[in-house]
């Protein structure tokens, strides 16, 4: 697989040996299991309540109509620009803080520094557990908790982004550090290097490109998350989208949404170009 693909999904999927010869049988069972779960979830829906709002059709039409004529007045455009900048700031500050959290925790959670086997187990269990806790809670839930704790401050948004992203990045960093080829490390150890030196001169040079590439992908995600962040009142693009929708001003909402799509697409293209060159 030559191209570096998006996300945790691929990072792990790449390591999945696809053809282990267990055959189609267990897959068929799994497919049936998943289908059954889906049907069950359909059955658990309360179908007696009406599915659509009475005015739903009209609302769709109205929304679709305003897509072709988004609001392009100078006021709205400058508002869109300032709120995009705010969203971008939160995303960049959040991801940079997340990297600060992820790197040390990731190194500790990989257990590569431990000299003895029990020490390694203790380190992996503790720090993987910590990382798992950080990423188990969605960033918006973190945001809401931080807003309740420290009020509507930009730091609530930044911390709420940095904690779960630190958890995700840390876990991936840990896996990458463990998964390096053993031969160069053995050579280093044979020449008397300590585990710390092996980390800096053996492991990191082998994986830093992958680490950067994955962080770049996470930066893309952080922009989307930063947009959502504003739904708890933290300002930015998402907040404007929400306000416009509440006032039923669809054409304004579309302007902000299109700006969001534009930013995400731009960062997407940049990070794709970067990742293609990073991991050859």
């Amino acid at each position, binding site marked *: 697989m030559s*191209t570096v*693909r*998006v996300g*945790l*999904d691929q990072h792990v999927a790449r390591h*999945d040996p*696809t053809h*282990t010869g267990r055959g*189609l049988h*267990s*897959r068929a*069972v*799994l*497919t049936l299991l*998943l289908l059954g*779960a889906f049907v*069950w*979830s*359909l059955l*658990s*829906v*309360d179908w007696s*309540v009406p*599915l*659509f*709002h009475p005015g*739903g059709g009209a609302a*769709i039409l109205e*929304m679709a109509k305003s897509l072709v004529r988004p609001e392009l007045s100078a006021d709205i455009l400058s508002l869109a620009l300032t709120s995009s*900048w705010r969203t*971008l*700031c939160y995303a*960049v*500050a959040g991801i*940079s803080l997340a990297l600060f959290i992820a790197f040390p925790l990731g190194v500790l959670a990989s257990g590569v520094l431990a000299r003895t086997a029990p020490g390694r187990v203790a380190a992996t269990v503790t720090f993987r557990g910590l990382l*798992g806790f950080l990423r*188990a*809670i969605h960033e*918006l*839930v973190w945001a*809401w*908790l931080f807003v*309740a*704790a420290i*009020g509507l*401050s*930009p*730091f609530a948004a930044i911390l709420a982004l940095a904690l779960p992203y630190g958890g995700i990045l840390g876990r991936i960093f840990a896996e990458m550090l463990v998964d390096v080829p053993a031969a160069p490390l053995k050579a280093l150890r044979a020449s008397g290097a300590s585990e710390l030196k092996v980390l800096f001169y053996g492991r990191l040079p082998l994986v830093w490109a992958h680490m950067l590439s994955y962080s770049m992908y996470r930066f893309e995600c952080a922009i989307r998350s930063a*947009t*959502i962040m504003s*739904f708890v009142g933290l300002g930015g693009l*998402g907040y404007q*989208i929400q306000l416009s929708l509440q006032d039923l001003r669809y054409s304004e909402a579309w302007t902000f949404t299109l700006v969001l*799509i534009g930013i995400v*697409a731009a960062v997407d293209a*940049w990070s794709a*170009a970067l990742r293609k*060159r*990073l991991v*050859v």
Partner: protein
Amino acid sequence: MIPSQRMSRNLFLKVSLIFFALLVCLSWYFILIEQEGALRQLFSPESKEYALAFLRDLMGVGYPKPAFLDLQRWKEALGLTYETLMMSILAVGIAGFGALLTVIPAARNAADGTLTLHTGWWSWTAYVVLRGAYILSRAIPELVWALLIVFIFTPGMIAGGLALALHNYGILGKLWAEVVEDIDLRPIRALRAAGAGTGQTLFYAVLPTVLPQFLTFLLYRWEVIIRTTIVVGFVAAGGLGREFRLSMAWFQYTDITLLLLCYLALVFLVDFISAGLRRLAR
């Protein structure tokens, strides 16, 4: 790699790195200097007092009967947890079916005919339209989809599931299409040589090859979706999310603790199930 390519690659990397560093500096400058009040406020004695009070409330200090010690409240919360789980499965199912129906025409090797052996303007049109739909669908966050959907659907499991599914449709479609593009063509050629039709090739060569990775990606997305279901519940639906929002609005912080415990348990449960099922998928 020829030297000039290497140089342009390094230049691009260098410029990107400088640009990103600049962006980091500017952002922190904006947050620390432009909004310096925020920093001062963060470290003021009042906000420390405020944060501590919030933590005390979360832990139920001074409450006669915190919600997380109330059996009745646990029962209600577990019911909501079940509802949230069902909503996530619904979302995965809808997104999965949608992506499954569109993924073959959205793969480049189907559009240029290496997979299906015939091509034309229609297959390229389908490719471009579907890839565009994937991009649009995943560019809009779940929460924005949810805000749009509640205009049309009554809030509930279907609305929440659809909002989640609409965002994940684009992600899953893109991931699956790349799996189809990376497919080993030899079994397909062998079947073709033996006289199999398009449907037969799809069913006997393409599907068995891509199924393990399709299922793996589906289960990974489920892990992500379960974390997001609570967020979509804030606006579009029942489940833990709506209750979380209501408890926040009414300052019932011990309820928040209870809901967070259920949420964490659900996330770890799904991670565990998904890891087990993924082993089955290989």
